[in-house]
């Protein structure tokens, strides 16, 4: 529901970085999004495409999203485990973990850039 405003923030951050580096064309933007961040990936893709088409720097840019699993660290067992439905309880020993390792990220990692006339890479 607020994916449009997230997409807007991404575009602004990318445009600012492009200007800083003298980049004319951004071909792709790479994100890392946690599975427990509450973001609807399809809605974010859609919103990004729509807003990117309005930006001279980002027209036609792709958005790739790496999803990270929701994982936590169990101190007694000294190992990581997958958090199911936000219950960060170790399946082996039952201890509740307070160290969430991944799954809540909302990171803009980097962007692929190229001059006009170049083709975007097809991953």
């Amino acid at each position, binding site marked *: 529901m607020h994916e449009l405003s997230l997409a807007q923030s991404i575009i602004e951050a990318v445009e600012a970085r492009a200007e800083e580096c003298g980049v004319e064309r951004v071909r792709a933007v790479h994100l890392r999004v946690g599975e427990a961040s*509450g973001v609807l990936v399809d809605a974010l893709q859609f919103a990004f495409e729509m807003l990117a088409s309005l930006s001279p720097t980002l027209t036609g840019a792709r958005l790739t999203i790496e999803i990270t699993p929701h994982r936590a660290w169990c101190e007694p067992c000294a190992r990581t485990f997958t958090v199911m439905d936000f219950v960060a309880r170790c399946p082996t020993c039952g201890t509740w973990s307070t160290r969430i390792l991944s799954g809540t990220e909302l990171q803009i990692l980097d962007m692929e*850039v190229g001059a006009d006339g170049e083709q975007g890479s097809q991953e």
Partner: protein
Amino acid sequence: MPRVTIARNILAANEEIAADVRRRLAAAGVRCINLMSGPGAGKTTLLERSVARLRGQLAVGVIEGDIETSLDAERIEAAGAQVVQINTRGACHLEAHMVRDALETLNLQRLDLLFIENIGNLVCPAAWDLGEDLRAVVVSTTEGDEKPAKYPQIFAAAQVLVLNKMDLLPYVDYDPERVCTQALAVNPGLQIFALSCRSGEGLDAWCDWLLAFTSKRSVTTARETPYIMGGAGS
């Protein structure tokens, strides 16, 4: 094709503003609670009752977030608190810049405790840091007892849970134990209050806790939970 690093949280702009709000509140000695719930769980009523009971003991201010109307702000003002209305015109949650702007119209030097009533929505408000010290979620006996299991993120991101409308318990199929068990499964550290804004049951304990919270200057800050966006691993 060349790559250029960005390495920035998508919500970095919100977080910078939230940090600024937090600094300004701390400098003025004001404690701040972000109050969240689904529509109609009783946030405004709880604030009205709290303001009335704490009169003479705590100077309470309220930032009222609503999609439209200033009805809730009028209720709070009538109860005797400084209040600012924010209308989001459709947006489903409050963001830090709205709170920063609202601070301009409050006299912070005159306040001890500031509540932010978030938009009635259990899905996303918890994800946005507003610069608060603490987040409280309100659920009520009329909305079903599976809310923490269905909307775990908001319960994981809060420090306090309020079960409201306990006066209606005889008339509804609602198991408070079940709600607490589910909520504690996603957040074992939650502090829980069961109360009724209608009968007044449980309000003393809640207000005593507010007094203690306001007098303490260094309780766990809300920022420490990973369940606001971009919290962990960033």
